[in-house]
């Protein structure tokens, strides 16, 4: 069911924001194809009547009271920033649009 193409891998890399090299594309295409072949095995037993499990613990309704907790200082917030300006994170120009 797999057979992932090199183009598909390129598309995935784009979706995942990975500027992979041409050489990597070749390697990853082969490896992903192999891995997908192996993991497709899950389809053998995943019958329609089996409910999916998303969480390992059967918890529900875990809520927090609407109470303010201390925030970081601006200095702490920006401490790891590659670049900062005017109390804000400085980033290269944004081309896309807000969703």
């Amino acid at each position, binding site marked *: 069911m797999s057979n992932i193409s090199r183009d598909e891998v390129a598309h995935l890399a784009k979706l995942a924001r990975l500027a992979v090299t041409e050489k990597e594309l070749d390697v990853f295409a082969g490896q992903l194809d192999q*891995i*997908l072949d192996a993991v497709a095995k899950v389809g053998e*037993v995943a019958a329609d009547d089996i409910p*999916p499990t998303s969480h390992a613990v059967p918890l529900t309704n875990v809520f927090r009271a609407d109470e303010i907790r201390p925030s970081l200082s601006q200095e702490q917030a920006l401490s790891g920033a590659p670049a900062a300006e005017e109390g804000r994170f400085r*980033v*290269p120009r944004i081309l896309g649009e807000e969703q």
Partner: protein
Amino acid sequence: MTDLTRLTASELAAKIHKQEITSVEATKAHLDRIAEVDGAVNAFLHVDTEGALAAARKVDGDLAEGREPVSPIAGVPLALKDVLTTKGVPTTCGSKTLENWLPPYDATVTRRLREAGVVILGKTNMDEFAMGSSTENSAYGPTRNPWDRERIPGGSGGGSSASLAAFEAPLAIGTDTGGSIRQPAAVTGTVGVKPTYGGVSRYGLVAFSSSLDQAGPCARSVLDAALLHEVIAGHDPMDSTSIDAPVPPVVTAARAGLKGDLTGVKVGVVAEFSGEGYQPGVQRSFEAAVAQLKDLGAEVVEVSCPNFTYALPAYYLIAPSECSSNLARFDAMRYGLRVADDGTHSAEEVMSLTREAGFGAEVKRRIMLGTYALSSGYYDAYYGSAQKVRTLITRDFSAAFEKVDVLVSPTTPTTAFKIGERVDDPLAMYLADLCTIPANLAGNAAMSVPSGLSDEDGLPVGLQIMAPALADDRLYRVGAAYEVARGPLLDRIPELKGVSA
């Protein structure tokens, strides 16, 4: 004076609390040991000499003033896996992406360790973002197995397991998503426990696969692991998946187990975890361990968990899917590495170029695999089906635990393989987690305890014990009983002193 680095945590704690030695002495002994041998092992990514000594002095000061120790392991040094945040102390997750990151906050585990007076020596090496079974995926070079430095120490927590085997620390913290505590413990002859999912807070544990990740104790003895378990476990309101229930009585269980009697305990041998792919020496070690459990009074039966063979493929869909989302935040905008910000590239380009430069091959592979598995059109066949397998595995466990108290299997199919042997063959690498993954998918508790050395290569083998969720104490009772019966192992490890890097 006895070599302090050879003592167990409970022995060290006893001496410190009786003020026969100081925590500073114990800490310095381990720092010296690290200075001496870590060049050959590479277990540590960062040694926090100042922080460790300050923590030790605090414990010594409190004891000198007549105060009770704040915990049973107050003053004992520990090695912390570099995937847990430490305020102001580097936290790299073995990745170039976080090379210079100093977290502005402590993980809950870190905080609990500090509050318990545990001395954090430093941060241990790991596969990048905990993805791997050999620690070869670290951006900072592989960790070497102290039993044989040509071999892997397991992964992802190879730094933690190696630090124990190399006597650089008596305690360590690991994290286990598919076996990253247990498999390293098995191949280094140490003890590692993956607690019940939700038993230990994940707040500050840099996520690989959120629904599977669980931090746990690593030690050279089952009792030490139990003492550490009680320090780090318990409900945390900062983690929504944290279980709001009392911590299972693991220390009591370990002490009970040390009496060496397993009468009345029913042990199930997982039928599916043997045969082809299992190293004969590992198989024989496992069979000997099962015989020993019988000798201790346990009733042993074979149990079939037919869906366990689907655990590995399910895991390699769920974990990459979650990781593709969890690792999206490493985008060069707010922290971490940024490359190509030269005014000619857009934010989007800088993101892609930085992620390309900052992540290693395995991380990229898994991100792409997960991106694929979650894509519309593929979701049902891959991620959706994997979630169903998860249900089936949980059902297998439930059925098994109706018949037995614990399940056992080898921890990993082989002993430590050679560095470089599997790096270019992801599927071969993934097989190392074959037996450990089911417990992660179902969220129950599991332990690896040394079961001696494989007769063909003289390398350590691990016995995996699995218990139902919230019954972590059973692991400790069975593990401790078996440990006593089997006898010590690490005194047979070759000496590292004088070994050059």
